[in-house]
Every structure is written in C-alpha cells, then in structure tokens.
C-alpha cells in the first residue's frame, strides 16, 4: 500500500510538470499579453515593464526561472495585473474561501444526495422513491448559474433575509446562498447514482444469502450493502470534489466571495500569466491527489482490490 502511494506520487511529478509546460506555452500562444491595453504603452515604457517581470527573456528561460523559483523558494512570482500582490498571496487569500464553501457544498451534496438515494432504493417503487427521484431530477436540472439568480431574487430582493453576496470573513449569512447554489445539482446526480447502485446491490446474490441467513434488514443494509453501493458514488465524488473548487468560478463571480475561481477567470482574460499558472498548478495537484485518494478509497470499499 505505502509503496503504491509512493509510486503514484512519483508519477504525479512529471504529470504536473507536463501540465505546467503545456499551460505555459498555450498561454503565451494566446494573442495579447498582460500589458496589452486600450492605451498601448509607449515602447520604452513597455520595455521597462517587461524587463521588470522578466518577459524580455526567451520563453525557455522564463519557464526555467519560473520552475527554479518554485522549487527553490516555493515562490510563484508576482501578479502581472494586481501589481501589489504576489501569486502566493492571491492563492493564500482566495483558496481558503473556495475551500470553505466548496467543502461545505461537497459535504451537503454527499450527505443529502446519498441519503436521498438510499432512501429511494430501500423504499423502491413507493411514493418516497418517486418523490426522491423527481426531487433528484429537479435538483440536477438546476446548475449553479440558474440557482444563483433565483436565490438572490428570493432571499435578497423579495425576502431581504440574506446579503446578496460578499464574504465578510465567512459569516454564515454569506455562506448560505453560495453553498446551496453549488450543491443543488450535485445532490441530484449523487442521489441518482446512489439509488441505482443500491438497487443493483440489493438484488445481488450475497444480499439474498444474507437475507436467507435471517439477518435483520438494518444489518444487511449497513454492514453488507453500503460499501458496494458507494463504489460508483466514490468514483463520481472524486472529480466532483475538484469541480466544486474549480467549478465555483460562477459562484465566485456571482456572489463576489473573493474565492480563487474569480482570480482564475480574470487571470485568463487579463493574461496574468503568473496567476493563471499558479492556480492551474494548484488545481492540477489537487486533481492528482484526489484521484489517488479515490483509488485508495476503492481498496477500503472493496476487499478484492489490492495495491
């Protein structure tokens, strides 16, 4: 197991390196640069600024310096657009915000989604099942960019209960709408996956055997059916976890949370190379780690899997 983890981590390094190189060249390929503006800078001024940020160097040299700074100093460089701030600073500020409401959304989506799915499966073909399925489909049809405007309209404008955006140090009033907006559609899909997976498991031979042995239904459900039910759910949850952090771009922009998603989008639009690369590396690393965690969870859920 340990050697498997070490092996996987060793493979992650070239993966991330490849990601950096690809992102670096793609980004420089896009027309315009961080200092392209409506008021084009006089050549002398542009040269001064480019020299300051090392953009006057050949591309390979820029890439090399960038990598060396990360490895030697863990320094992702200065932002080219938010000139008082460094990339480390931007990530340190935005990531905890994204992580807070993304994590809460993930938790809400998993608990509510899986709960709804299990409930529907054990009450198969009852009104509870139909209700849960309808609810799940309705939730799945409400992506965050639909939920956002609806929530603001209802809770801010009509009811005047919640602030229409902002973060304010993460007070709960500011968390409610972003979490609901982000979690809703995932609740729907997790519920559906859990339900169909559980139905399949409940009809399998080993559950029939357990029932034949006369085990109480509760024990069958929790001890025997739960783990295999979660297998497909977990493989879905891995990417969802990264999605709720990266896919929170809309929530960041719409609710002005100050999270990292907003910086990600604006860095791409303003060609803030350093921020774009920094956030890409963060998300890439996170994806690699979450994939590893998912694979390890398989081994726990299914004793047949060994690493």
């Amino acid at each position, binding site marked *: 197991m340990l050697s498997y983890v070490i092996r996987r981590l060793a493979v992650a390094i070239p993966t991330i390196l490849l990601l950096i190189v690809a992102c670096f060249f793609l980004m420089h390929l896009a027309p315009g*640069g961080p200092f392209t503006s*409506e008021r084009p800078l006089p050549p002398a001024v542009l040269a*001064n600024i480019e020299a300051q940020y090392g953009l006057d160097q050949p591309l390979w040299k820029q890439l090399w310096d960038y990598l060396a700074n990360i490895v030697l100093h863990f320094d992702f460089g200065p932002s080219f657009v*938010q000139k*008082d701030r460094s990339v480390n600073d931007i990530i340190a500020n935005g990531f905890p915000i994204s992580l807070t409401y993304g994590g809460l959304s993930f938790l809400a989506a998993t608990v509510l989604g899986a709960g709804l799915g299990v409930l529907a499966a054990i009450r198969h073909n009852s009104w509870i099942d139909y209700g849960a399925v309808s609810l799940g489909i309705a939730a799945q049809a409400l992506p965050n960019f639909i939920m956002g405007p609806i929530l603001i309209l209802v809770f801010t404008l009509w009811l005047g209960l919640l602030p*229409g955006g902002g973060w304010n140090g993460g007070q709960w009033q500011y968390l409610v709408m972003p979490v609901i907006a982000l979690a809703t559609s995932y609740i729907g899909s997790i519920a559906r996956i859990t339900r169909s997976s559980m139905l399949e498991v409940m009809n399998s031979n080993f559950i029939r055997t357990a029932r034949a042995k006369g085990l109480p239904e509760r024990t069958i459900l929790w001890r025997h059916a739960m783990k295999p039910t979660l297998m497909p759910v977990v493989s879905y949850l891995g990417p969802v976890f990264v999605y709720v952090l990266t896919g929170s771009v809309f929530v960041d922009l*719409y609710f002005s949370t*100050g999270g990292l998603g907003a910086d990600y989008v604006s860095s791409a639009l303003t060609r803030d190379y350093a921020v774009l690369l920094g956030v890409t590396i963060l998300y890439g690393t996170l994806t690699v780690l979450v994939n590893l965690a998912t694979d390890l969870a398989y081994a726990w859920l299914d004793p047949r899997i060994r690493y």
Partner: protein
Amino acid sequence: MTRLTRSALAALLSSAALFAALPAGAQDTHPETGEALAADQVFTYRLLDNVSSLDPQIVEDVDGSDVVRDLFEGLMNQDAQGNLVPGVATGYEVSDDRKTYTFTLREDAVWSDGEPVTAGDFVYAWRRAADPATASPYQWFVELMSLENAGAIVAGEMAPDQLGVSAPDDRTLEVRLSEPLPYFPQMTTHSTTFPTPQRVIEEHGSEWTRPENIVSNGAYVLTEYSPGERIVRERNEAYWNNAETIIDRVVALVINDENVALTRYLAGELDRTEVPAGQFPRLSQERPDEAISFPRLCNYYYTFNLSESGPEAFKDPRVRKALSLAVDRDIIVNNVKAGGEPPAYTFTPEAVAGFTPPETEMAGMTQAERDEMAKELLAEAGYGPDNPLSFDMIYNTDEAHEKIAVVLSQMWKQKLGVQATLANMEWKVFLDTRGQQDFEMARGAWCGDYNEASTFLDLLDSASGYNDGKYNNPEYDALIEQAKTAEDTTPLYTQAEQIIAEDMPVIPIYHYAGVYMLDSDVGGWPVDNVEQNWYSRELYKKAE
C-alpha cells in the same frame, strides 16, 4: 424596583449610550445646504472588479484611482464642477516662459502617521513614477506632463534624479517643463502625481499598501482590504481638512455582474451602482429620484483601417462619409443605450472644458437628408447594386457592443445595400488585432485622461500610438502641433474637428453618459464633474 423607575432608568441608559455613540464633532446639518444629516455616515458602492493597485504611482484603473484619490491627496484637487482647487498646495506661480511652476505647500498637511507632507515627498513620488525600476504603467503620463528629462529617464538614458522637479525647501515644489503646457496644473489632480511616503515604501516594499503598513495623506485611511471582495476606508483624523469631512466610512464592494449589483442596490445593500444598458428608462420611471444620467468625458466610435492593410474602399473619403451619414445615432442612443447618452457628430465630447465642438454639417441635417447624401456619395464612389460594398467589422465581446454593431450593419444594409460582416473577439485578442491593423473596421472608445480637447484630438495625430486606424493628414497634425503651445486653442480645435467631419477617419456614434442608481439619501455627488473625479469627503448622507 417599580416599573416606572425601571423604564426611566432604561431610557436614561439608552440615551447615554446614544450620546456616547455620536462621533466627536458630528454635525446634524450640512454646513452649506442646511440639510439634516444621517447619524450613520457610511457610503457603500459597487466596484466592477479588483483594483489594479493602491499605489498612486502604479494604479491604472478607474476604480483603483477612485480609492487612491480618497487615500492620498495631490497638489491640486477638483471641485464638484471639475475646476481646480487647492489640495496639498495652496496655489502656484507660473514663470513668464510658462515652463516653470512653483507650488507652495500648506503647513498643516500631514501623513496619517503624523509626519508632515513635504515637497520632498512629491519629488520622491514623481521620480518614482518615471523610474524604469518602478515599472509603472503610467510612466507615459510623466512624459505627457512634459517634465524636463522625463523621456530620457523613462528610456533609461538618464538617472531619475535628473527629472525636472525639485524641492528648494519643505514647503516649495519647483517644476520645470520641457515646453509650455496649458493644462499642466490640471494634471496634478491625477493619482500618478500624488505624494508617497519614501520611508514606508522602503521598509515594506511592494507590501506597503496593505492596511497594516500603509501611510497616506488623504481624507481617508485604508482599514480593510479583502481582494475581490471589499475595500474599506475610514476617516483620517490627521487630514488637514478633516473637520469638513462628513462621511466616516466608505465601503467598496466588488460585484462583477452589473445585474447582481443592481439587485443588491434595490435590496438596499448599496448606495450607488451602474445601470446596465437599456434599463435606464424603466428604472427612472420606477425610481425617478435615484436614476441619474449626466454627460461623461468619453466617446464611442468606429474606426476605419486607413493603413496599407486596410481595404481600398475606405481610402475614399466619400465611402467613409457615406457610412457615417447613414448611421441614425438617435436610434442607437434612444433605443439601444437608452441611458441619456448624447449622439456624437464630433470626435470631442461636448462635455469637455474650454472648447465647444463646432456644429458640423451632418449635425444640422435631418436623417432623411443624411441618408440621401449617403446614397449619392456611395454611388459617386462607384458602389451600388452592381458593385456592392462589403467589409468586416470587429468589436470586443459585450452585449451592448454587439447590439450596436448589429444595428449599424442593418442600417448600412437597408439604406445603402452595404454588407458588413460582424466578428466579436475577446478583449485582449481584440486589442491585439486592432493594434496590429489586422482589421477593416473596428470599435473604439476613449475616455479623456484630463479635461481638455487634446486628450481626444491627439488620438488622430499620425504620430499617436493610439491611432489604430493610422489616419494620416499632415494638415491635421500641424493643427494639433500648433495647439500644444497656442494661447487660444479654440480656432485650432474647431478646424481640426471640421477636418474630421469632412475626412471622417472615424465614425463617432455617441458620447458617454454616467448612468447610475444613486440613493436619494446621498448628497454631494459631483454630476457636473465630467471626468467623474469624485472625493468621498465631499459626499454626505441625508437623514431620512
């Protein structure tokens, strides 16, 4: 305790608490207008995006400059009409050759840490702005100010201490220009020229603008900065004119989406926000006291590519004029923008100070007459049903720009049978494409850097780096050159506008309006300041 004594005690306690909560020196009425003032003097407004910087020499965006203008104070300020009024300087003298300005600084100007603001602080800041090592995107502004040696310093050929600015003593700032510049004093209201504290910058480096480090000399100090979320500034007790400041706290909330901002405004979270295009008529009906529109110092136009790479058809002024004539500007301002924007027949907005753009021939015609003339001109130029004119036009991705482009292309198609193909581009791609003359017709817009017609007319000078259409008319260039040093610029600018109207290197569409929702409790908003250089210390909240 009886019920009576208990309630009497409660009343006594609450009034004592109320009394204690009142800030020292709070006024109940506005000293000039006599309006009753609210107890809670907090102004909350929307920021479109994160600010580029809070460093006066580095900030380049409008929102950032608004914050910096509250935190720092330069030599001169603008009043509600945009006129020059004293700031840190009590006034200035100009030498006979109009190349040396001597500013006298006030005695009581201090930094928020109590240190006096000296002429040396300005010298430091101006050198810093020009210094290539600072890498300020506004180095060009120092060149534009015509400070002695600015060009050579920016080019790295001279040391920053050779800049034409010096401090003979702490209260005197001497500025030497390389050539007379009529609007030089106006430029000292720009954030690039604000003083900065050398000792703080040297101690904290690029982190000096953080709330815990920053030392500033304006009416407010920075107390909270959550990037991408909010910027809070509070009354600076050390400010020399603090007694006249009414607003205690200014909160700027970053809200990217203008419709969300409007919803949050309607929910009472904001005192000011921008009105999204097309929504002004509805809002001004529903909330007539809050929806306001006033002229701004910006223009909106389409430029022809007149360079080598441009289409042959556009080299003919008759074609350009025909296309301009066929644009029914009233439809665009009334039905598309609908925010009270004035239609544009000249390049310079009418709102500009010190110059009234001439009434052009086109402005005096009816739209039917214009359409008739457009058809004739296009036919003369050899385009018609058997030889239809077609070209591509580009604009940056944006709902309002798209609507206008569609309307323009339809007007040309219906009136003149011209086929314009639209292409939208992401902002940086658009700038890059337009800047490399890789287009036929492109959208353009310009907001004045200072309130003088040359900030617009310079754009069409063949030597201008902003002249993306590469219009080149020696006669026009000569007029602009002459105006730089002329005593009376009006005849020169008038003539320049007439040339534009005749030659039509660009199609002016409309001039901007500031279209805001402004809470009716907010007093003192400078609607007459066309540059919209506003100062929170001049605002106030009226009691409801």
